[in-house]
């Protein structure tokens, strides 16, 4: 029997009123790969992720996570996920350890293993020394790493990261990716990441899909995509060719004020 795809999206379409956010996309993420969903604000990346992590209903089309239908088996899907949303989503009034322990409880980590698993998750993100400080005193990069520790305490089969480095300075961005990479090497988990930082996707992803205005324009390995365009081409060049747009969001009226506001708020809080 063949192993099911980590994520299998078939004909997914999602509307908000009259606006079509995701327009009939097909997508497969293989077990164990790091897959980047790229595109500017409003491309449909976050909507796609919200459908596959069960936050939004699948209106049209089918979505499976490791063979589990997101419509019929929501709890089974959620038990496989680690999720880091775009916003800084820690509880500032709790310590780092309490934040991670909270999610260990919510994911049914057995009591006898809980303390060790929490320490392991904090240690893997280099936060053990700061574990008993209030999370509100953490720097932006530390907050992101704490969120990763929260997501990893469940030992997820699929780690979903929505713009994990938005608003971080280059050092903190590098640190976040370094820790994700280390976890990936240790556990072999599948990572699905959305970003509009092309250079990060180029360096970190096994394969990428470029989304624009709700559709997937191209899927492939970053190197393949660059090579197909010509010598010296960057992933951003590939994106420009596929969409005829820049990443700055000139057409982002469709992206939605709410999403832009959220991005800015996150950037402001980590900055």
């Amino acid at each position: 029997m063949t192993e099911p795809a980590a994520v299998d999206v078939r004909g997914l379409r999602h509307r908000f009123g009259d606006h079509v956010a995701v327009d009939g996309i097909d997508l497969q993420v293989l077990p164990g790969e790091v897959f980047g969903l790229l595109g500017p604000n409003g491309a449909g990346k976050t909507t796609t992720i919200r459908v596959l992590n069960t936050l939004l209903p699948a209106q049209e089309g089918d979505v499976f996570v490791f063979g589990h239908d997101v419509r019929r088996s929501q709890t089974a899907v959620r038990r496989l996920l680690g999720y880091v949303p775009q916003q800084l989503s820690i509880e500032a009034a709790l310590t780092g350890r309490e934040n991670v322990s909270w999610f260990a409880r919510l994911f049914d980590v057995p009591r006898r293993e809980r303390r060790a698993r929490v320490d392991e998750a904090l240690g893997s993100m280099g936060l053990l020394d700061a574990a008993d400080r209030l999370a509100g005193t953490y720097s932006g990069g530390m907050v992101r790493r704490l969120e990763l520790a929260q997501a990893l305490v469940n030992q997820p089969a699929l780690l979903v990261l929505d713009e994990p480095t938005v608003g971080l300075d280059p050092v903190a961005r590098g640190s976040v990716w370094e820790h994700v990479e280390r976890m990936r090497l240790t556990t072999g988990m599948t990572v699905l990441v959305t970003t509009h930082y092309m250079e990060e996707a180029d360096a970190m992803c096994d394969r990428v899909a470029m989304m624009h205005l709700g559709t997937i324009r191209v899927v492939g390995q970053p190197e393949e995509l660059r090579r197909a365009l010509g010598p010296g081409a960057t992933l951003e060049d590939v994106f420009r060719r596929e969409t005829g747009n820049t990443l700055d969001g000139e057409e982002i009226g469709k992206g939605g004020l709410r999403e832009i506001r959220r991005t800015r708020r996150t950037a402001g809080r980590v900055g």
Partner: protein
Amino acid sequence: MRSAALAGLPAASAERPAPPALWRRFPSRTATFCLVELQKLSHDRTELFTRAVQPVLWLVIFGQTFSRIHAIPTGSTSYLDFLAPGIIAQSGLFVAIFYGIQIIWERDAGVLNKLLVTPTPRAALILGKGFSAGIRALAQVVVVLVVSAILGVALTVNPLKIVATFVIVMLGSAFFACLSMSIAGIVLKRDRLMGIGQMITMPLFFASNALYPLAVMPAWLRALSKVNPLTYEVNALRGLLIGTPANYPVDFAVLIAFVIAGVTTASLLIGRLAR
């Protein structure tokens, strides 16, 4: 990272042991949210003191003044004794009725989305949040009880009745927090919730027996108070704390029914906040 994946590392297992049965998961999740609330309170206790000011003012100023002028007929019970349980219920109401704002804040901060993506039944999340509001209210109950005792209110010293008082306050606060979260799920915005919260708090308070007996109300207000869960909460608290006649089975049953209805409604609406 790319080279690692291409090198054929084993993928993390998607196999999971069977989850605990729902009857174990539900109370465990609810207790987790209460624990988190206690942890938050233990790190910042200022709110306990600031929130205690208002009920103390009600007791000390309103209570003592109206005791002297005998404006409200409370039979053989002094007005201060009559008022103290009402102020306890009011404290819980005032804490809980704005609890939806916290849910909207958690939505804006991304915390709610993360919680909704865990394998936590939505009803357990809502009940946990409701009881969390109850925990904050309990802290005020203790303050009001101490101040009442200092002012000479003839309170019970029966520990079982004190525990039952806490249970009643938890139930009442849980319902009003569920009501607030349901409204949050409808209006979706903090400003609107603030406005609605302010609009309904005083009618809930005044259309109950917290400040005056049902007997002195006009008929229409008495009819309203019969469908107001605050009335049943105050009834039970008065019976437990100062020994006035109370119909505990009815009071408990009504509060539990309101909590079940509130949890069900808020669970159905909470997903709207994630969209």
